[in-house]
């Protein structure tokens, strides 16, 4: 058994807004019919989270059920239970048209937290991060700087970012630089 490590190996930058690698994060990418009851039922049993509305991340403790597109979901679970989760999904949806894959090692999970965390994201993405437009639980796929990323708001000052492993270093440094540069006064 190989020794799994996250791309950023727990890197963190302190400051008014902190940027922290969340380490190993179990992630299951699921494509299928999100309106199907059997699909939402097994996703709920794997994550503990209710089915999300479009453009939302439904969170339950350390797990989550995110809406990626009309036919794609992202399930977040502890790293060591991904295999069990996949087995449950494959079992429950056997015979249906779907695809579930373990993408845990293909991605990175970074948390941006602090007083102007929304502006740290707003400066490097085209998404309107004002609290009137982007509320707690909102989940968006877009880009940060030059690369694709998805992010959701878990509380007023905390954002979770998912990106590809190969660009984790770039995204971390981008967010850290944006945090270090300070607030711009858009959302406060």
């Amino acid at each position: 058994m190989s020794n799994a490590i996250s791309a950023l190996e727990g890197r963190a930058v302190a400051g008014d807004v902190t940027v922290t690698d969340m380490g190993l994060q179990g992630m299951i990418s699921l494509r299928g019919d999100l309106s199907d009851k059997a699909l939402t039922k097994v996703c709920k049993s794997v994550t503990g989270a209710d089915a999300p509305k479009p453009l939302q991340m439904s969170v339950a403790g350390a797990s989550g059920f995110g809406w990626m597109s009309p036919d794609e979901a992202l399930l977040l679970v502890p790293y060591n239970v991904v295999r069990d989760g996949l087995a449950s999904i494959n079992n429950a949806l056997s015979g249906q048209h779907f695809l579930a894959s373990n993408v845990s090692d293909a991605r990175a999970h970074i948390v941006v937290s602090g007083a102007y965390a929304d502006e740290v994201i707003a400066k490097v993405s085209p998404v309107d991060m004002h609290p009137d437009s982007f509320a707690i639980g909102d989940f968006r796929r877009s880009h940060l700087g030059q690369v694709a990323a998805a992010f959701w708001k878990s509380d007023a000052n905390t954002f979770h970012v998912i990106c590809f492993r190969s660009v984790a270093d770039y995204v971390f440094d981008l967010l850290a630089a944006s945090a270090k540069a300070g607030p711009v006064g858009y959302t406060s």
Partner: protein
Amino acid sequence: MLTLHCPYCGVDADETDLHAGGEAHLTRFGPGASDDDFEGYLFTRKNPKGVHFERWRHAYGCGKWFLAARCTATLEVFATYSAQTVAPPADVRAAITAKRPDWSWGDLS
């Protein structure tokens, strides 16, 4: 900067989240077609100043292809709509007519 409403996920997507896919509503000419039709399908495109129909992909977002009706001269967007259509729906045409009463595009007007 262009902002297009994605009809699949509901996001008002920034141009940098999108990928342009060229002219919409092309008729595909494949095996068995005449050389002229095949050449036209591959290479001949409209390049209007004014009302145009285009394919766009919400590339950094939900990943879906959709269609947009907009003005190439002013960048005004009349409507975005499902890619599962072979011609602009009536409500899209009405939205264009409301703003550009004398518009035409190929055989459409």
